[in-house]
């Protein structure tokens, strides 16, 4: 059989990556717990209604790029690249055999020996052709992904521009309507102060959202949130009197953005008694020796704490510098009024604004208490607000961050250093990460996945099921099952950070948990929220 001649390059038009819709999306039901895999280890009290099978394919954007493709497509590229390299190596060996065959010119050599020379020559040609085809396939696939990505980026930029223009045009309209809005707002404020026995109003809202989870659980809603967050700064600027073209220009140059919108909220909020920062205090709640490091994304996410918001693991091995893993928990309360809980909406909003929020300061206090020095190697893991805080810590430049793994973190606008291992995992039907604005930093592998694929019934245990821990557990399981080098290498690097030490003879692993609280500032003294104290009572 002759080797085929590579045909001319294929036309590379716009393509789509999609999963076929089985039935229209938006149906919802309460899932039977009996359907869940037995190895799910969600925290007590956390509903378990999502399985890896319910979600969509894993979408992977390697660090340093904006090119998104499915994990399977990346794995396919890896396979083709490796096949091509192997074919090149075999071709070189065959060329060597061809050159060394001494019997080609020997008339008394057996005919079969001389025939083998011709067949080796044919093999060289065939293998060269196969290697060339492998190379062309790799180039064609990369080009197709790049074309798709370029079209996607163009569409995103167009939508962003439209949102910015709409936001800027809306500002003056809102200003003109201000008297009316103030009346409506005043009525709403008074309404909120009216007695609500049994929390009936809040319960009605909660029930409505629970019975309509599809309203806020879809990539379309997430895109709307992202555009709203993007356009909010232009709306605010023009509302405050900045001319519309200037408001658009400020947004386009990045002078305003999600960060300035958050800061604006934290400036106005305290006037109404909301989003008021306070000093914080942390207390070590437990210290224990453990034997096993986490292996894989599922086990790391499973170690992210709740209630006691921080867990720090110390890895010591003879003759090696100590390493630490800091696990940061999710939001504990969504009240906009800062009370005792630092893992609150104030830390969420301020964190998106890049401010020195209570949860961030509490994390640093706990890290100091655990004995982490600036040059110690640290890996950060966080879920939701914990992912935001973990990203802030990794990007602060104050710690020797080696790895970062976040799940559902609104942290796209935080700049990260070069050379971090790990990944940011987001569910594309979870709107919380979109509150952090577009993904501006590209130093970390980005992994996305739809928690509930089209046609999958949405559970009704929570208004935002795609943001729940079990939805991210399912995505973490998909990460652990990934076949592309891009994901496997980062997952392995995170594993190795702890396993390399834990596997050594004489190593010890110590796990510490911390509870943080907000403390009221002293009334007479000027308040400096940075002043905080730490109390450590050791193991309990």
């Amino acid at each position, binding site marked *: 059989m002759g080797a085929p001649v590579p045909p001319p390059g*294929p036309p590379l038009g716009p393509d789509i990556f999609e999963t076929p819709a089985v039935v229209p999306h938006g149906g919802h039901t309460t899932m039977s717990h009996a359907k869940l895999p037995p190895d799910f280890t969600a925290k007590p009290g956390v509903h378990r209604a999502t399985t890896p099978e319910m979600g969509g394919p894993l979408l992977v954007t390697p660090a340093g790029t904006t090119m998104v493709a499915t994990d399977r497509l990346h794995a396919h590229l890896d396979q*083709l690249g490796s096949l091509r390299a192997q074919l090149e190596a075999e071709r070189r060996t065959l060329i060597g055999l061809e050159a060394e065959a*001494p019997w080609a010119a020997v008339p008394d050599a057996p005919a079969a020996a001389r025939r083998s020379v011709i067949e080796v020559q044919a093999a060289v040609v065939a293998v060269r052709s196969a290697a060339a085809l492998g190379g062309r396939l790799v180039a064609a696939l990369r080009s197709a992904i790049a074309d798709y990505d370029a079209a996607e980026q163009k569409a995103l930029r167009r939508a962003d521009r439209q949102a910015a223009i709409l936001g800027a045009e809306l500002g003056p309209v809102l200003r003109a309507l201000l008297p009316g809005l103030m009346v409506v707002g005043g009525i709403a404020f008074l309404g909120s102060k009216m007695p609500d026995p049994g929390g009936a109003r809040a319960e009605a809202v909660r029930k409505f959202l629970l019975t309509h989870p599809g309203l806020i659980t879809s990539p379309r809603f997430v895109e709307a949130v992202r555009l709203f967050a993007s356009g909010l700064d232009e709306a605010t600027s023009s509302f405050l009197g900045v001319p519309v073209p200037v408001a658009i220009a400020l947004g386009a140059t990045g002078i305003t953005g999600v960060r300035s919108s958050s800061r604006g909220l934290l400036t106005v909020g305290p006037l109404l008694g909301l989003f008021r920062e306070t000093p914080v205090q942390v207390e070590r709640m437990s210290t224990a020796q453990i034997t096993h490091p986490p292996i894989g994304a599922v086990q790391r996410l499973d170690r992210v704490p709740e209630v006691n918001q921080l867990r720090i693991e110390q890895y010591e091995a003879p003759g090696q510098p100590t390493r630490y893993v800091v696990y940061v928990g999710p939001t504990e309360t969504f009240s906009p009024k800062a009370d005792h809980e630092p893992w609150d909406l104030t830390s969420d909003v301020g964190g998106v604004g890049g401010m020195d929020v209570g949860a961030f300061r509490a994390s640093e206090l706990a890290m100091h208490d655990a004995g982490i020095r600036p040059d110690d190697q640290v890996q950060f893991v966080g879920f939701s607000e914990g992912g935001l805080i973990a990203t802030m810590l990794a990007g602060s430049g104050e710690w020797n961050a080696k790895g970062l793994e976040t799940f559902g973190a609104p942290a796209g606008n935080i700049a990260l250093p070069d050379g971090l291992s790990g990944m940011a995992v987001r569910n594309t039907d979870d709107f919380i990460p979109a509150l952090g604005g577009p993904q501006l930093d590209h130093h970390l592998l980005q992994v996305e996945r739809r928690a509930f694929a089209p046609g999958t019934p949405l559970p009704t245990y929570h208004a935002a099921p795609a943001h729940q821990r079990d939805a991210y557990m399912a995505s973490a399981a998909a990460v652990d099952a990934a076949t592309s080098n891009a994901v496997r290498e980062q997952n392995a690097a995170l594993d190795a950070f702890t396993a390399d030490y834990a596997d050594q003879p004489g190593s010890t692993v110590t796990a510490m948990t911390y509870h943080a609280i907000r403390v009221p500032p002293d009334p007479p003294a000027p308040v400096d929220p940075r002043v905080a104290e730490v109390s450590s009572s050791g193991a309990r």
Partner: protein
Amino acid sequence: MPTMDPGALRAALERQATELAPISRVLAAAAAFPPRLSADEWRGEAAEACLRLEDDLRLALAASDNAVSAAQRSTRAAISELGG
């Protein structure tokens, strides 16, 4: 007219057979399980073009496997012709 010592010729042919064996294993495996893009998750003009290229790759791998197998067979036949 060049001639060759039958012992040296046999040794050279045996070296060739030894070197062809792993190449043949690699090519046989690649030809049996060529990389194949799943048409389920990627559709469109470019995907179809890539699938066509993959068909060509499959043929090229099979041709490579056949050529190396033939060379192996001829080498073994020559060794056996030279006798022990």
